[in-house]
C-alpha cells in the first residue's frame, strides 16, 4: 500500500522524467503562492467525500438491460405474443399505445457471487465481479433519440448548452495532478453532440475535457491534440521554449505581478510538462504482460478497448479527476444499437467484457477502488419487445440498468426494479438527474450547492431536479 501511495504521489507532483523543470515550476507556483491564481488547484470538497475520482465507462448506443443484468422470466413465458406497450417513440409521435411482440433474450442468465446477481452469458468476466458491483436497475432518463439522450447523460440537458459532468466535477474539486488535464475522455465520439459531451460550456475553459484520440481511430494511436511535434526534435523544441521564456521575461518585466501574463506563461509551462508526461502515461509498454493480458490486450476482439481501460487505470493512478472511457463510434446509430439483429450485442459484449473486468480487478488489487468511483452504462436501455416485430430492440429511456463500483457505493448490491417485462422502472427509480446528484454526492459535492453564475443566475448540473440515492451509499 505504501509503495502504491508513493508511486501515485510521485506521478502526481513530479510527473514522469522531467524532475527539474517540474520542480522549478512547482517552486514558482509555491512562490506565487496561492490557489487563487490557479483555478485548477485541488479544492476541498464540501463534505467528506467517498470517492476522489471517477472512471465512466460509456457504452454508447444503449445496451439492453434485459439481455445483460435485468433478468425477466416473463419474456420467456410470453415470447412471441403481442402485448400493449407504451413505446416511447411511438407515443411521442402518435400519442398511441400499440401492440408489440414480446422478445425473450437469446442469452441465458445465471446467478453469480454471494449476492446472486443474475448476469447473462454476454458478460462472463464481469459476472465474476458482481460482489463488488452496485446495480441501479431502476434508471430512467430523458430523450428517446441518441443525440438528445447522450447530451442529457453528459450534461443534464437534452438540447440546451450545459457543462459536462466531468467539467462540473473538475470545477468543484480541481485537479490532483499539475502535469495533466483534470478531465480526460478517451476516444470520444464526434457524433451525437460530439465535443459538447465533454465541454465546459459556460464554465471557465480550464474545466473543459481533454480528448485523447477519437472514436473510429485505434487506441494505439490515441493522443492529445497538438501534443506531439513531428517536425521538431526534442532539443529544437526546448530551444524554442527557452527563447520564448527569454522574450516573455523581457515583456513581462514591464508588468511585475501581472496575473494574466503569469497565467499565459504558466500555460506554456504546463503544455511543456504535459508534452513530456502524457506520452509516458499513455504508453502501455512498461506494463507487465500479465497485466496487459488481464485487460485482453493482444487479443483481436478486446485489444482496443483493453488499451483504453488500461490507460484509464494509469490516468486514475496519476490523479486525473474524471476519466471517461468510450466504447463508441461516430455514427448516428452507434455500437450498442441493435434495432435489428440483436445478436450483434454479443460482439460488443465480447469487445468490452474482459477489458472492463480487467480494469475492475486491477483497480481493486491496487487499492484504487477505495476512492475511485466506476460507472458503467449507456445513455438509455432497450425495449423488451421487438422493434417493428423484427429482430432487434428499440431505445428505451423508461427503464434500464447501470452499474457502479468502488468509491463509497454498496458492494454486491442491487437497487431498483423494472416492471415484469423490464420496460419501465417502477421501484427504486433513479432518474439521470438523481444519478448525477448522487455522483456529485459521492465526491463530496452537494448538487444544489455546486453552482455557477451565468446569464445572471446560478446554474447547476441537475437544474432544479435530482435527489441523492441514499440507498446505495455504503
Amino acid at each position, binding site marked *: 500500500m505504501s509503495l502504491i501511495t508513493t508511486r501515485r504521489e510521485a506521478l502526481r507532483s513530479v510527473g514522469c522524467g522531467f524532475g527539474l523543470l517540474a520542480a522549478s515550476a512547482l517552486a514558482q507556483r509555491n512562490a506565487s503562492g496561492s490557489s487563487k491564481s490557479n483555478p485548477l488547484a485541488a479544492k476541498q470538497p464540501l463534505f467528506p467525500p467517498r470517492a476522489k475520482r471517477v472512471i465512466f465507462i460509456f457504452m454508447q448506443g444503449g445496451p439492453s438491460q434485459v439481455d445483460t443484468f435485468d433478468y425477466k422470466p416473463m419474456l420467456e413465458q410470453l415470447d412471441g405474443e403481442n402485448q400493449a406497450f407504451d413505446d416511447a417513440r411511438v407515443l411521442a409521435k402518435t400519442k398511441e399505445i400499440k401492440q408489440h411482440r414480446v422478445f425473450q433474450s437469446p442469452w441465458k442468465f445465471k446467478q453469480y457471487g454471494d449476492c446472486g446477481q443474475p448476469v447473462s452469458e454476454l458478460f462472463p468476466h464481469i459476472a465474476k465481479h458482481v460482489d463488488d458491483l452496485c446495480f441501479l436497475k431502476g434508471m430512467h432518463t430523458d430523450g428517446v433519440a441518441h443525440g438528445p439522450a447522450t447530451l442529457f447523460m453528459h450534461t443534464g440537458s437534452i438540447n440546451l448548452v450545459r457543462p459536462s459532468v466531468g467539467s462540473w466535477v473538475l470545477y468543484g474539486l480541481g485537479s490532483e495532478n499539475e502535469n495533466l488535464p483534470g478531465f480526460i475522455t478517451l476516444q470520444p465520439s464526434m457524433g451525437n453532440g460530439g465535443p459538447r459531451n465533454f465541454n465546459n460550456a459556460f464554465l471557465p475553459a480550464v474545466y473543459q475535457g481533454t480528448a485523447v484520440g477519437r472514436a473510429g481511430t485505434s487506441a494505439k494511436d490515441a493522443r492529445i491534440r497538438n501534443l506531439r511535434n513531428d517536425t521538431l526534435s526534442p532539443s529544437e523544441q526546448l530551444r524554442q521554449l527557452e527563447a520564448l521564456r527569454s*522574450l516573455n521575461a523581457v515583456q513581462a518585466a514591464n508588468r511585475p505581478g501581472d496575473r494574466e501574463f503569469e497565467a499565459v506563461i504558466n500555460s506554456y509551462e504546463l503544455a*511543456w510538462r504535459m508534452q513530456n508526461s502524457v506520452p509516458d502515461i499513455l504508453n502501455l509498454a512498461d506494463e507487465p504482460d500479465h497485466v496487459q493480458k488481464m485487460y485482453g490486450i493482444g487479443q483481436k476482439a478486446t485489444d482496443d478497448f483493453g488499451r483504453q481501460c488500461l490507460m484509464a487505470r494509469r490516468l486514475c493512478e496519476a490523479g486525473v479527476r474524471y476519466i471517461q472511457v468510450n466504447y463508441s463510434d461516430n455514427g448516428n446509430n452507434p455500437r450498442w444499437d441493435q434495432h435489428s439483429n440483436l445478436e450483434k450485442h454479443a460482439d460488443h459484449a465480447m469487445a468490452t467484457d474482459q477489458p472492463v473486468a480487467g480494469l475492475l480487478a486491477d483497480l481493486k488489487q491496487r487499492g484504487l477502488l477505495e476512492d475511485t468511483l466506476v460507472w458503467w452504462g449507456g445513455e438509455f436501455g432497450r425495449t423488451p419487445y421487438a422493434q417493428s416485430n423484427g429482430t432487434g430492440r428499440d431505445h428505451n429511456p423508461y427503464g434500464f440498468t447501470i452499474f457502479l463500483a468502488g468509491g463509497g457505493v454498496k458492494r454486491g448490491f442491487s437497487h431498483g426494479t423494472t416492471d415484469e417485462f423490464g420496460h419501465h422502472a417502477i421501484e427504486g427509480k433513479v432518474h439521470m438527474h438523481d444519478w448525477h446528484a448522487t455522483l456529485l454526492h459521492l465526491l463530496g459535492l452537494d448538487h444544489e450547492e455546486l453552482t455557477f453564475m451565468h446569464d445572471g443566475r446560478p446554474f447547476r448540473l441537475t437544474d432544479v431536479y435530482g435527489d441523492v440515492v441514499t440507498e446505495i451509499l455504503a
Partner: protein
Amino acid sequence: MIVHGSCRFRFDHSSSGRRGSDGFAFARRIVWVMLLIGFAICSPVISSLAFAEESRERSLELFEKHVRPTLVEHCVRCHGPKKQKGGLRLDIREGWEEGGDSGPAVVAGDPESLLLQVIRYDDLSLEMPPKGKLPDATIAAFEQWVVSGAADPRESSMDSSDLPTSDAVKPPTLEEGREFWAFQPVVQPALPDTGESWAVKDLDRFVFARLQEHGLTPNPDAERIVLLRRLYFDLIGLPPTTEQVDAFLNDPSENAYEDLVDRLLSSQHFGERWGRHWLDVVRFAESSGGGRTLLFPNAWRYRDYVIDSFFQDVPYDQFLRQQIAGDLLPTDDWEQKARNLTATAFLLLGPINYEMQDKDILEMDIVDEQLDTIGKAMMGMTIGCARCHDHKFDPIPAADYYAMAGIFKSTQSVIHSNVSKWNMMDLPLAPSEAENFEEQSTKLARLEGELKSAKQAFAEVGGSLDGSSIQSKSLPADRLDGIVMDDVDAERIGDWVQSTSIGVFVGRHYIHDAEQGRGAKRVIYRPVIDAAGRYRVFVSYTASNNRATNTQVQVRHVDGQESVRVNQRNRPSIDGLLEPIGEFQFEQGPAEIVISNDGASGGVVIADAIVLLPVTDAEETDGQASSLVRSESDASDEAQASKVLRDRLRSEIKELETKIKGLKKRLPKRAAVMATKDAASPKDIHIAIRGQTHQLGDLVPRGMMQVASWDSLPPIPTAESGRRQFAEWISSPQHPLTSRVMANRVWYWLMGRGIVSSVDNFGSMGQSPTHPLLLDHLASKFVERGWSIKALIREIVLSRTYRMTSAATPESVAVDPENQLFWRSDRKRLRAEDIRDSLLFVSGDLDTRYGGSNIRPGTKIEYGYRFTSKRRSVYMPVFRNTLPEIFEVFDFADPNTQAGSRGASAVASQALWMMNHPMMMEQSEKAATRLLGQSLVSDEDRVRHAYMQVVSRPPTERELDVAISLVTSSSDGSTDISSDVAVSRYAMLYRVLFQCLDFRYLN
C-alpha cells in the same frame, strides 16, 4: 376542479415529458404566490353535511394510521416546509386544499382527486412518489380517507413560520421596476465641468470627472507605435504592414491619427471585424447543433448582410428593424428588399432541435429561443426566464413573455415534418433578371404542364417508360383474352375509392372500399354473353398485405348462385392479375357477377375487372389456362392503334424533357434564404404554466414588455403578427434599453470592458454601470447621430480615454486595481480570429476576398469537416458542434448560446496549439521563406523586419540578442540564407514571436 394538460401539480420528476427549460436552482420557495392566491379563491369547500361524525372519526383514524406516516415518509421532503415542488405542500391541511399549480390535490369525498390519481400511477407523466408506487393497501387507505371526508387535523406545520409565501422574494412590480436605472428614459446629461483639463472629447470629461472624484490621474497618452497596433486590431482585426507602420510613424501631420482612423473605418476589413462582433451577439452559426445537427447552407447570406451593414454603416435602428421584421418593411428597391429578407435569418439561426416530435413544443422552443436572443442581444434582458414564471428579479411578468411570444408564434419560422425545417423564402431578383425570369418560368410551367398530360395519356394507353413485361402498372382491357369488364363499366353501390398505387390492374385504376361501410358496398358487373355456354370466371385485383383475406365474389349462373371468398393478400395465380373463381354455365345475354365487402376482414376490398373465358374442349382436358394476356402484336386493331399512339407519345415526352432540361439550365438562379413571414392566421396565445406547453393558463393579447413601454405605442392589428410594431418599439429612440445596450457594447469592444460589464444583462442581476452618465451621454449621442455605429466608434477611438497607455501605474492600482474608473486603457487579448488572420497575413497566405459562401460544396453534415480555407476567419464556417480547432482553443464565442462577451482563458491547449499545431508549423515556415526571399542583408535586419510584421515594433536590445542567437548557428554565427536550416531557424523565430506576450496582447 380544473386540471390542465397531462402534467399537473407535479413537475419536478417528470419521467418522460419535457422538463421546464430552465428552472432556478435556488429560491424555489418563491412558489407561485400568484397562482396560490388564485387557487385559494376556488379552494374546495367541504360542504356536505352528510359526512357524519362517524365518518369523520373513521377518516381521522385512516389519516393517523396510514396517511400521515406515508406523507411524512414519501412526500413531505419535496412537498413540505422546505420545498414545495409544483407549488404543493402536504405537511398541512391547507396545502392539499389549495393544491399546487393545477389546483387542489384532494377534494374531500372525490375518489378522482388528483392526489389519488397520481399515487395510483394512472397517468404515465404523473406518477408519485417518483421512486416507486406505494403498496396497494396504502393506496386503498388513501382512497378511503378521501372518500370518508379527508379529515386532517394539521392546522400548521411544525415550522409554521415557513409558509411558502412568508419569506418569498416577490418579483418587482412594474412601478418598482420602472424605478430601476435601466428602465429610466435616456436623457442627455449635462457635461461635467472639468475646467481646463485633460479632456479632448466630451466623453473624456465624464471619465475625468470620476477620476478626479477618486483622486486618480489618467495614464499618459500611449506612444504612436502602441496606438497603431491597438487601432489596427480594434478596427480591422489585422496587423499593419511594415510599410504602414513606417508611414504612420513618419506622418508629420497633426491629423495623422485621425486620418488613420478614418482610413480604417472606410475599409471593408472594418465590416469584417465588426460584423463578427455582432455575429457573437446573435449566436450566429451555420448548423442547428444538438445531437443530430442540420446544416444551414444559406446562413452565410445573413453573415454577409451583417458584415456589409457594418461596412455601409447602416443606422442601427434600421439594422434592428430589418432583423426582426425585414420581410414586413415596405420598399420598392429590390436590393433593399433582398437585404431586408436576408436579415430575418437572425430569428432562425438558433440552436434548435428540429427532430422534436411534439411540434407544439418545438414551436414554443423556437419562439423562446428567439425571445431569449432578442432580449439579451438587443435589450440586455433575460426575458427567457419569464417563460416559466414571472421573472424573479426583473419586472417581466410571464404575461409579458406570452404577449411577446404571441407575436413570434404568429410568425412562420418553421416548416414541419418528421424532422422539421426552418422557413425559407425566395430572394427577389434584379428587375432586368426578373422580367426574363418571369418569361422563362411561364414557359417552363407550360412545358411542364404539357409533359404531365403527355405522360398521363401515355399511361392511359398502357405505355410504360421503363419497359417491364406487362409494360406498366396498368394493362388495357383489350390485351386480355375473353369477355372483359372493368370496374368503370360496372355498377357501384356505396362509396368506392379509386386508386392506382399498386399494379398491375386493368384499365386506368382499380377501386377499394376504404375498409368502411362493411356489408353495404357492392360492385355489380353485367357482362353480355354472346353465346350461351360454359365460361371460366376470373376476377382481377392487386394483391398487398393490407387487403381483405375473404372478399366475397358472387356469380349468378344458370344453375343458381355461387359465392366464393378470395384472399386478396395472395398474388392472383394468372399473370399476377387474375384469380379463377370457377366454371359456370351462362345463358345468352347479361350475366351478373358481384364483388361485395360483406363479411370482409383483414383489410380493404379490391374490385378491378372480371373476365369470362369460354371453355373449349381442349381446355376441358387441359385444365388451367396459364396466361390470358396477349402480347401486343396479337392484339386487336384497336391495340395496334394504341401502340402507334404510344410510340408517338414516347417521343413527344422525350422531346419535352430535353426542352425543360435546357430551359432550367438557362433560367436565372433564384436564391433562397432563411427568412420569416407572418403566419396565415396570427393569434394571441395562452400563458403556459411553468413553461409546460400543454398546460395552459390565461390568454394574453400580443404586446411589448410593459416596463419598457410607453403610452403612445400603436396597437397590433389582428391580422398582423405584430412583428413590425415590435421592431418599431425596440428601435425607437424612446426605448430605454436599446441605445444604452449597443453604446455599451461598442465601448466594450473598444475598451475591453463595458460601462455595464455584464454586456448582455442590464437587469438587476447584471452589473450596474460604473459611469451611468457617460453611458447615457454615449447612448443619446448615438441616437442623435442617426444611430451611426461608425460615428460612435470614431468618437471613442479619438478620445483621450482610449488613447491612454495600459501601464499598471502603482498609485492608481492601489486605489482602483480593477480599473473600474478607466484610469488606464485595459489591455486586450487577441482573439482566435486575430491570431489566425495574423498568421496568414504575415506568411502572405491570407485570401482577402470579401463575402460569399465558404462551406465546401457537397458538405452534408458538419461532423468531420476539414477547415482548410485561407480566407479571413469571419468567413470560416461556424458549426455548432464542429469549430475550427483554433476557435475552440482560443475562446471563440460559443454559437450555442447568446454571448456578447468572450472569455479570456489561458490554458495549456492554447500553448500546445501555438507550439505544435500543423498550421502554426506551416505558416511559420512560409513566413520564414518569404522573409528570406526579401532583400534584407543581415540577420539583424531580418529579425527587425519580423518583429515589425508580428508585433509592430522593433525589438529591444535584449530581445534582439535572443532572436539573433536563435536564428544563427551556434558554431560560426552566420547562416546561409538559402538553406533549409535558415528556413527552420526563422520559422522558429516566427513561432516564438507569435507565442510571445506582446503578440497575444494589445498593449
